[in-house]
């Protein structure tokens, strides 16, 4: 048995709930299993709230797309499918490594656990790097929601910044990915307004997802540090298990976001 940090109890204590558990066992749980199950249940309830959190934006997406399918078909041409697909693969790979990390924790493979968490963190960083590349391109092109300073979708063209108009490929020539679609300057004011709403939904959905990736990176860093310190064992790996579940949810959301935003024919 490992040494425990639990305080020694006075002999003759007659209660059945005397705390003899290992260091990780909190006093209000009787067994490690009970604590593990309660933690996991709590996390699943949290994931339920996360699903509903995202669902509001998915409903906004559905509403707007059902009303304006042509706007989605047009606007999606400005998104880079290759970068979106690359990000999908990076996230799937990270889901695999974090699932492997859970196995490592269960089996007490400390070095592999550290390696898998590090690779997962690296994938998360790569995802954000690609996302940054996409966002900065959109910012440069003025492909933003209508209220943004640099947006080329303003209802009144005199409010569109002349420097953005001058260098924006989207404004002058159209999409670099599909040469058949009209440049934004040929759209009517009403059409510009409608396309700007697509980008508002795009930035809300990918932005909220991106915030979740960033939160996941903080979580993974914390798990990595604790793993390096050797705080996990086959007897106690709950944080790894729960952290992995959260990370899989981030992957799940992206699995739906990718075809819904990037693959509109």
């Amino acid at each position, binding site marked *: 048995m490992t040494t425990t940090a639990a305080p020694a109890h006075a002999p003759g204590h007659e209660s059945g709930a005397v705390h003899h558990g290992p260091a990780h066992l909190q006093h209000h749980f009787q067994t490690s299993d009970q604590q593990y199950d309660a933690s996991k249940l709590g996390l699943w309830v949290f994931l339920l709230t996360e*699903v509903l959190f995202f669902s509001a934006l998915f409903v906004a997406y559905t509403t707007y797309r059902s009303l304006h399918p042509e706007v989605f078909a047009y606007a999606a041409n400005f998104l880079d499918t290759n970068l979106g697909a690359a990000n999908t693969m990076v996230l799937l790979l990270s*889901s695999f490594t974090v699932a492997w990390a859970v*196995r490592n924790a269960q089996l007490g493979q400390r070095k592999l656990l550290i390696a898998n968490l590090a690779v997962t963190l690296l994938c998360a960083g790569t995802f954000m790097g690609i996302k940054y590349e996409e966002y900065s391109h959109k910012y440069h092109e003025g492909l933003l929601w209508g209220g943004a300073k640099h947006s080329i979708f303003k209802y009144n063209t005199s409010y569109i910044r002349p420097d953005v108009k001058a260098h924006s490929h989207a404004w002058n020539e159209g999409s670099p990915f599909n040469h058949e679609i009209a440049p934004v300057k040929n759209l009517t004011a009403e059409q510009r307004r409608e396309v700007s709403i697509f980008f508002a939904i795009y930035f809300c959905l990918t932005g909220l997802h991106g915030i979740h990736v960033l939160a996941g990176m903080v979580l993974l860093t914390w798990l990595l540090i604790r793993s390096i310190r050797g705080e996990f064992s086959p007897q106690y790996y709950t944080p790894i298990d729960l952290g992995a579940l959260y990370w899989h949810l981030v992957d799940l959301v992206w699995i739906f976001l990718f075809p819904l935003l990037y693959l509109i024919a």
Partner: protein
Amino acid sequence: MSDHDKHDELGHGNQPHVLSVGLLAAVLVALLILTGLTVYTGKKDLHGLDLGIAMFIATVKATMVCLIFMHLKWDRRFNGMIFLFAVLLVGLFLAFTTLDLSQYQPLVDEYRRNQVAP
């Protein structure tokens, strides 16, 4: 020590359910292939079936992640029920919004037309 412990079929505590690297890798490969497939079908014009096919593939991918990566296949049933409940609530949310939309959008459109007319 674990010999005399009652074996927990659901894979908890002293007897965790450990997934093999082979199974995890197989799921990863399947997910990557499905991603390739959805990109391929997404680039083709499938006459209105595009969205249905893309959502079907995404749902298959999500189910694999839930059941295997997230361990729901071997987890306590109640955890899976919570997640299923979340999906049902999303369905309800979507269904009611769509119903509402189809009910009232014609009125909104009519109002707009009257606004534009002199």
